[in-house]
């Protein structure tokens, strides 16, 4: 990871986990960025920006500086060529803004799905870009690395971002793509409970057919992904995913039919296809969908001799 960035000519001015500098050394560095003595190419921000209590931002002070993180981010963003929000909290407010939102948390340039956050909706960094939202909870480490590599190569412009400011190299995919449960999905052969192998859309809250992300294409920590491990996609790359309006692992239904439809699918067609495919579900798929391991293997066809 460190070599990948170094090879692309990217070096850290300061990183909270990796840098040597602490305390007074960091304060000096920040002062020099504010005065323009040091050029800031990319400002990366993790975590939502909190405005509480009472609009002061004092729920999050940058230690040692007597200034709120809200104030620092607004100041440094104006100096940066590019501003990157790392993770859904920094992008839109995220889980920190759930429930009663006790800290009055928002994202860098969004408040949930609404444009305008700690920076206003028309903010553009020195390089002419809105905030780049590498959303995900967690975000994929490669989404961050590749965003930085694209910026370093001069290959990321506003046209490469989707409507919520997410880089399209991962946001043009759906979590559904390459999901190993796709054969179950085709027949709406559904798991009734967690740890069953079937599709998680009908009963267990999965919104992988609507959520953006290449999670099942590039996978996580080796071979992983949420659906590969048997739990639903909860759309963590999206603004306001933290408040789905129902329990995360339950599918809201109307008259027994799931409310959320796959992206780009007309409702009538979905209903027709779903009832047809459900009726046509092969025994193997119906059986395996409600088991925790494969009970019925695929029939092996012998070559014609």
């Amino acid at each position: 990871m460190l070599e990948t960035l170094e090879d692309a000519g990217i070096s850290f001015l300061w990183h909270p986990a990796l840098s040597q500098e602490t305390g007074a050394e960091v304060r000096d560095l920040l002062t020099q960025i504010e005065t323009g003595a040091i050029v800031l190419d990319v400002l990366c921000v993790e975590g939502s920006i909190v405005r509480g209590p009472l609009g002061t931002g004092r729920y999050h002070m940058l230690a040692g500086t007597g200034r709120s993180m809200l104030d620092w981010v607004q100041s440094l963003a104006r100096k940066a060529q590019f501003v990157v929000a790392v993770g859904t909290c920094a992008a839109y407010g995220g889980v920190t803004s759930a429930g009663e939102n006790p800290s009055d948390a928002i994202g860098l340039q969004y408040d949930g799905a609404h444009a305008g956050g700690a920076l206003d909706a028309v903010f553009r960094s020195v390089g002419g870009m809105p905030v780049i939202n590498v959303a995900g909870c967690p975000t994929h480490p490669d989404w961050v690395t590749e965003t930085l590599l694209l910026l370093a190569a001069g290959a990321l412009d506003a046209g490469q971002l989707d409507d919520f400011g997410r880089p399209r190299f991962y946001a043009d995919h759906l979590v559904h793509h390459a999901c190993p449960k796709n054969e179950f999905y085709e027949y709406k052969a559904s798991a009734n409970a967690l740890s069953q192998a079937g599709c998680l859309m009908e009963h267990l809250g999965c919104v992988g057919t609507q959520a953006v992300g290449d999670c099942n294409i590039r996978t996580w920590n080796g071979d992983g992904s949420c659906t590969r491990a048997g739990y639903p996609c909860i759309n963590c790359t999206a603004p306001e995913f933290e408040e789905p309006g129902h329990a995360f692992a339950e599918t809201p239904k109307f008259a027994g039919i799931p409310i959320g439809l796959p992206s780009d699918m007309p409702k009538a067609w979905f209903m027709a296809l779903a009832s047809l495919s459900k009726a046509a579900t092969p025994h193997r798929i119906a059986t395996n969908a409600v088991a925790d391991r494969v009970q019925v293997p695929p029939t092996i066809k012998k070559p014609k001799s």
Partner: protein
Amino acid sequence: MTDTRLIVGPFNRVEGDLEIRLDVSDGAVQAAYTNSPLFRGFERILVGKAPEDALTITPRICGICSISQSVAAARALADVAGVAPTPAAEKAAAMLHAVENLADHVTHFNLFFMPDFARPAYTSHPWHADAVARFLAAKGSAIHAAIEARAGLLHIVGLLAGKWPHTLAIQPGGMTRAMTARDKVRIASDLRRFRRYLERNLFGAPLEAFASLSSINELEGWRTGDVGFFLMLASELGLDISGRGAARYLSFGAYPTNEGPLFKRGIWQNGERRDLDSSEIYEDLSRAWMLGESRHPSSGVTVPDELMREDAYSWCKAPRIDGHGFETGALSRQIMDGHPLALALAGEGGVRARIVGRFLETARTQILLERLLSEIDPSGPFMQSVDLPYQGMGEGLVEAARGALGHWVQIRNGVIENYQIIAPTTWNFSPRDSAGTPGPLEAALVGANVKEGEETPISVQHIVRSFDPCMVCTVH
């Protein structure tokens, strides 16, 4: 040097936000005040949610202790329902949790703690060139090796739990994915690779050799690997007597099973171990920007003081037992488990003891992981259904890398009515209480050496980082 006040921050190579105020005179810290300067209010966010949503929300408190939060939430809900995960799932969850703790220990030593010895302040020492080559921040060879080894180890979490952090695989009744024999051999291979890394780099010898050390004398004879390098630094810089605590330790017991935790639970005070009764715990709010009275977490409240009153200085509450703060973490766990080397270090209780506690636990956890894996029956059920009652109380006590983590949940009318969390660093970095008793770090910093002209004293940095604080969990 007399009567200076230093504000140290931003404090990096700790997880999250930390500011420390130091009163300094005669070249030493006279008093320290620990401030956790970020409040988010996760306990409040959970109120009114479906109880199962705690499994999605609480892991997101933290990007490095995420599985610990996940296991604590699952255990608290299981406690409400009066169930436990299936035996195979219990071992699999313990394995995932141990992997996270092991990864955190290796990250702490290489990325957070050791880079301070590569600082220019130590240029005149004969070992400085070696410290730079191995541990210069973001550059040293040991740092590169640790990042790579850790990424490989976390493939175990990818395989069984989808991703790290923020898995939803760990449930009150078990795991969302049943293991197979193929998973077992893959994990065994990941574990062998990690053992090779530990034995080549960190210990420079078989893990069993380090795990069988039983006295400080034997410890000081250890020469190999980065462990040997640290022990040499420790003896040259007096890290054994630096940052000494009050020798009061606490552990909730790591990796719960139906036969009890795999590392034992208990309290250490006045040189001896006793059983821990979790009902003795209370959180004092007098110097925290929190409103309300001292309470046991099962009925605790989180109401931030929006006016940030003058006599308080942190968003962190002060957990206490019988008026005392307790230190928690790897050293505490190993003391409570009765390991002879840890017991020998209990009275020392300074920077060296905390770091060695982590070495000891690293070696023992790798061995434990190999045993757990061999014991898992991949044909067994990994989930049983759990019906959460409409009302009830539950407690989930686990051990994160940094120490004791507790979740207390109250369910009423089918939703969460109250949720309280005490994280490890809430114990370690607590502010003063109503009696003025400082928290463990505040006490350990008294007497730390401050050189003329130092704005961010190096001795203070060693002491703070020896605790491996996780500030994002502290206030949550």
